[in-house]
């Protein structure tokens, strides 16, 4: 049982929680995630660690209410407890060579990219960040990201804030301007990560993406989270969740994420 000590509505159906979890905070590193359950009959879902504070013994989670568990989580308040919380899981993100990094976060993917930018910034990298969302209402962590980036760009699909268009438009512009870019870390919806990968492949820029595969245990015992990377089968929960975007089979991952569409509709009715 882990206590929620802070809760914030970032946008409609987008919630931030700061949770007491000293054991997890102590070892957490950017790129790692937790598994959680919020109901006695609940399922186990992965959430990326959006921030951690070793001194306070807390971790930060950001959840978009897309399924039953995230909706139940969204109903929890300060002082409530998360029934089961396990972590930190997965391998920390390994950084490719070079000091010029671009961090891209799309939608709820802004949360997991934040600790990456933060760490790189602390280590003295030149960090350029691009965050994007469908509309300005869904943008969050703007100040936080600005604080850990040498430069921050914003894009919205509807043009309600920043660049009117996609994060990849901005990345293209940066490349066209001839800025030095050694590697890109991109987290967001699969189509966004795939678009980033397609773009950087042309220029031979190393790109790391982080997956939120379907998981059961999160410790390597079910194989439900498997992905194909460079023709090899990997388990997202233990080999990832960060992978080389140029080797990843995004289409397969997209398909696997849709595996329980039908059942998800049933759960909505049941609530």
């Amino acid at each position, binding site marked *: 049982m882990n206590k929620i000590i802070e809760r914030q509505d970032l946008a409609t159906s987008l919630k931030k929680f700061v949770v007491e979890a000293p054991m997890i905070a102590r070892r957490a590193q950017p790129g790692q995630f937790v598994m959680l359950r919020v109901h006695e*009959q609940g*399922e186990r879902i992965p959430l990326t660690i959006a921030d951690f504070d070793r001194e306070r013994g807390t971790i930060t989670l950001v959840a978009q209410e897309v399924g039953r568990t995230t909706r139940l989580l969204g109903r929890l308040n300060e002082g409530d407890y998360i029934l089961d919380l*396990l972590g930190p899981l997965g391998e920390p993100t390994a950084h490719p060579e070079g000091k010029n990094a671009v961090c891209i976060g799309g939608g709820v993917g802004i949360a997991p990219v934040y600790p990456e930018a933060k760490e790189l910034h602390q280590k003295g990298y030149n960090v350029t960040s691009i965050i994007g969302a469908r509309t300005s209402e869904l943008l969050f962590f703007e100040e936080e990201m600005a604080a850990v980036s040498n430069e921050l760009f914003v894009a919205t699909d509807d043009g309600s804030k920043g660049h009117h268009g996609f994060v990849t438009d901005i990345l293209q512009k940066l490349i066209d301007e001839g800025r030095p870019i050694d590697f890109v870390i991109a987290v967001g919806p699969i189509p966004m990560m795939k678009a980033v990968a397609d773009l950087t492949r042309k220029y031979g820029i190393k790109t790391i993406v982080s997956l939120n595969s379907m998981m059961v245990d999160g410790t390597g015992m079910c*194989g*439900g989270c498997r992905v194909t990377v460079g023709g090899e089968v990997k388990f997202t929960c233990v080999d990832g969740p960060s992978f080389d975007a140029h080797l990843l089979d995004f289409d*397969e991952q997209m398909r696997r994420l849709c595996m329980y569409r039908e059942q998800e509709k049933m759960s909505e009715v049941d609530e």
Partner: protein
Amino acid sequence: MARIRPTKHPMPAQPPEERIKNFDEVTHGYSEDVAVQEALRCLQCKNPRCVEGCPVGIDIPGFILKIREKDFQGAIDILKDKNSLPAICGRVCPQEDQCEKLCIVGIKNEPVAIGRLERFAADWEARHSKAEVKPVEATGPKVAVVGSGPAGLTAAGELIKKGYRVTIFEAFHQPGGVLMYGIPEFRLPKAIVEREIEYLKKLGVDIQLNVVVGRTITLEELLTKEGYEAVFVGTGAGLPYFLNIPGENLNGVYSANEFLTRTNLMRAYQFPKWHTPIHIGKRVAVVGAGNVAMDAARTALRLGAEEVTIVYRRSEAEMPARKEEIEHAREEGVRFKLLTNPVEILGNEKGWVTGLRCIKMELGEPDASGRRRPVPIPGSEFEFPVDVVVVAVGQGPNPLIPRTTPGLETSKWGTIVADETGATSIPGVFAGGDVVTGAATVIKAMGAGKIAAEAIDKYIKSKQKEEK
């Protein structure tokens, strides 16, 4: 004495057409009368062969005699002297390969139903025993147990009885290991496992759930910062193997571990009341023929699949599952395609499984395991339609602990190297169960937990002496 009854007293069970519609236990267990009658079939041998076949050396004629004398408490006391989990072992042990295989009565007739009698005694105790469990005054050094399968549970129980302060660290949100997430309710009711865990808690064992050793905390930290004098690693063989054939990542392909964990631990069979979904196919193929495969096949039927087929590359004689489970599966309508090896899983444009392409096999020369090696028959490929494939071709140990514990020696199969007492290459670190042997049995894991507890006791005592 009258001539011995040639067959075991039959086990009362739910009829197959009924039981495939529910997850309730298949068999009901002997009544007192039948148990006493069955106990009379035992010859009370002076040199009991059965005991040699028991991995933990239970005094089998001894407990059977007590049943014959209707001293059921006496029977359970004898069982528990060697086996701390008789209600579980009585249900899931492969007796036909162990005690019952060697039973003298079995030479001419069916052997004594030792397993059924063991289960009877354990169930009798659960129903009748009023003895309050008293917490142990554990004031000794701290010992950590990693993993709460049969190996870990047994080690924890033995250690606390010796006065050690015991903490179990378990990755899952529920203790029990394979007993909870793997073996289905209809074969091993979860209430029985929960009872054993409650018992340990009452004794005073501390169980820390949601802790992955190697991630949340390392083995090294347990031994240093956290102040544990010794650690027992019983993390099992939870890493699923796949076939490495095309199509294995299609939607609708599961490892048996995932299929069974979703169903048992996460109760997908009660979806949507329980929230974890599972994809229930109309036609399910299960690849493999061990206990895990039988469990997956019978689970698929109960979830509502119309046609379930076991696909196995060797022949009937080599199927590793318990005989009783194969029989139960047959009775329930599971089909068997033997001497058949899958070569590709077929899918549609949306990425869902549509069929299985297989090749027929024949048996050739014996291989390293002594079993005749299956070889493909050229040109015999065929396809059949399925919408779910469950891969049950074995598991290995999870590499997490070895990977995060410098100096911990492992074999080329990834198992932790331990001597006969469970001692590993690191002083103070002991291991036992599937993580040492590779996927084996509940009783062997239990036995290993017990032996390691003895060794840990010796290790700590000799260390204390040195320090004095």
